[in-house]
């Protein structure tokens, strides 16, 4: 029997979030009473259709888009894949542009389709973020070509939380006639984000990062953006994504975003303060620790390095005390290479293995932070004492 704490402390909001009870309440009727297919003509179907469309309007208003510019998808990954493949292939067909650019620390949902395109007729350039965790517009400019079809840089990084200068990046792309997509899965609702202000052509979102359900995504496609659908069939979603729409998921997404926006300013302040306590507590309280990424960050995000510890061990030890965090250590993923994000910002592999990603959210309390700061130091100490190299590498 494992010794477990009564109180569990969730600090991995970047991985996923619980569905907010207000969101569950909003979506439930669309599973049960209002279960109609939104493509059906009778009352039950039209009710579902109206719910779907008002969810679309509400999300559109929330991100500064027109309702017809939003496509409901099955997840953030589908939004990313559709944007990368659908836009690039159509831009290639229409304008013979066959070059794409992505940043090195994109989520794999962007990187892998980009690599797939590179094997299927496209040239791919990968731009590195700098050590601050930011893709610098000048670096993007240097990567652009006259035949660049699409640039994809995320709005905020999922591991280190750094916010990207989207408006400048999009402008750089547009100067060369390229389209610009951003993976805004992590940024949505946490910081102001308006597609028309930043001037992106496409953006990806996912419900389960903002207290909505898993399996509900949105793709913003600016009017007129060349696109071919990834999923073909019944022609739903303005023929841009076939498949019976997940009405409950769409309603949930809209409600979740509405709550994020209503609470954004307060939450940003509250979570930044909590994050500062986490970071301060770790850096001041534990020797040989440091913070990754110096650029501006999403509220509540901290990526910390505990030199001489391995991430998965820390994670499991914290879990046995009821604390949930994640790590960029390779071992947690079953591969051997540590997080491509940390490597991309120049973090040496041996340090990246000792990373902890701590991401706070709606239900994080001061007591959670207290508990984390109480539990972590002895774990780090114990693991370091078991590390045959610790004294040699990091000893005083």
């Amino acid at each position, binding site marked *: 029997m494992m010794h477990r704490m009564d109180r569990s402390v969730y600090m991995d909001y970047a991985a996923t979030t619980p569905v907010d009870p207000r969101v569950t309440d909003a979506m439930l009727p669309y599973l049960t009473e209002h279960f109609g297919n939104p493509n059906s003509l009778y009352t039950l179907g039209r009710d579902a259709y109206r719910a779907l469309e008002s969810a679309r309007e509400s999300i559109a208003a929330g991100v500064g888009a027109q309702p017809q510019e939003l496509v409901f998808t099955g997840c953030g990954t589908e939004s990313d894949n559709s944007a990368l493949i659908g836009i690039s292939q159509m831009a290639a067909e229409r304008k013979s542009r066959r070059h794409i650019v992505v940043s090195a620390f994109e989520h794999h949902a962007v990187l892998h389709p980009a690599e797939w395109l590179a094997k299927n007729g496209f040239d791919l350039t990968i731009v590195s973020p700098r050590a601050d965790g930011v893709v610098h517009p000048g670096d993007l400019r240097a990567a652009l070509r006259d035949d660049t079809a699409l640039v994809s840089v995320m709005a905020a990084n999922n591991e280190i939380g750094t916010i990207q200068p989207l408006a400048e990046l999009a402008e750089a792309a547009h100067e060369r006639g390229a389209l610009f997509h951003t993976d805004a899965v992590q940024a949505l609702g946490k910081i102001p984000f308006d597609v028309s202000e930043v001037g992106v052509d496409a953006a990806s979102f996912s419900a389960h990062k903002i207290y909505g359900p898993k399996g509900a995504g949105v793709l913003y496609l600016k009017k007129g953006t060349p696109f071919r659908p990834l999923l073909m069939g019944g022609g739903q979603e303005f023929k841009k994504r076939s498949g019976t729409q997940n009405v409950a998921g769409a309603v949930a997404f809209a409600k979740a975003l509405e709550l994020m926006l209503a609470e954004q300013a307060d939450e940003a302040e509250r979570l930044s303060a909590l994050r500062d306590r986490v970071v301060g507590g770790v850096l001041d309280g534990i020797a040989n620790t440091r913070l990754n990424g110096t650029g501006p960050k999403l509220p509540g995000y901290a990526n910390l390095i505990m030199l001489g510890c391995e991430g998965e061990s820390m994670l*499991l030890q914290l879990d046995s005390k009821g604390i949930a965090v994640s790590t960029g250590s390779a*071992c947690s993923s079953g591969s*051997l290479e540590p997080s491509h994000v940390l490597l991309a910002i120049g973090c040496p592999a*041996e340090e990246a293995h000792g990373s902890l990603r701590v991401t706070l959210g709606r239900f994080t309390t001061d007591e959670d932070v207290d508990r984390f700061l109480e539990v972590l130091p002895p774990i780090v100490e114990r693991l370091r004492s078991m590390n*045959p190299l610790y004294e040699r590498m990091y000893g005083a």
Partner: protein
Amino acid sequence: MYSEKVMEHFNNPHNVGVIEDADGVGEVGNPVCGDVMKITIKVDDDRLTDIKFQTLGCGAAIATSSIITEMARGKTLEDAARITKQEVADELGGLPPAKMHCSVLATDGLKVAIDDYLTQHGREPLGEPLISSDPNFDPHAETHDDACDL
């Protein structure tokens, strides 16, 4: 993901530490790959009378380190050096496929320590020589595809 036995050994690893007057020492792995194991042994009459380890690594790395010290103690050098990674994994109630390489760390570490003892005493080492301090040494290289290639 991990079996109960793995978690038990991970949470309460046996024989952690360094034998100060060890008869043999083995150190394998590489911090760049995220796991390093150091094993120290006492030998009496070609039998392992004491073993201690230190490991930097994931849950499986620590648990396999712990269990191999239990498995090897009391065995002859030859029997101990013959412990396979599969036996280590089995003894732990199995390991996730992606973690099988961790049991190589444990078996290799033990072999290096035994060979260290043997060569110190002017005897033939049992295994192929492993150069544990080479920073490019990669204990995983043979065992799976996506090896640490930084």
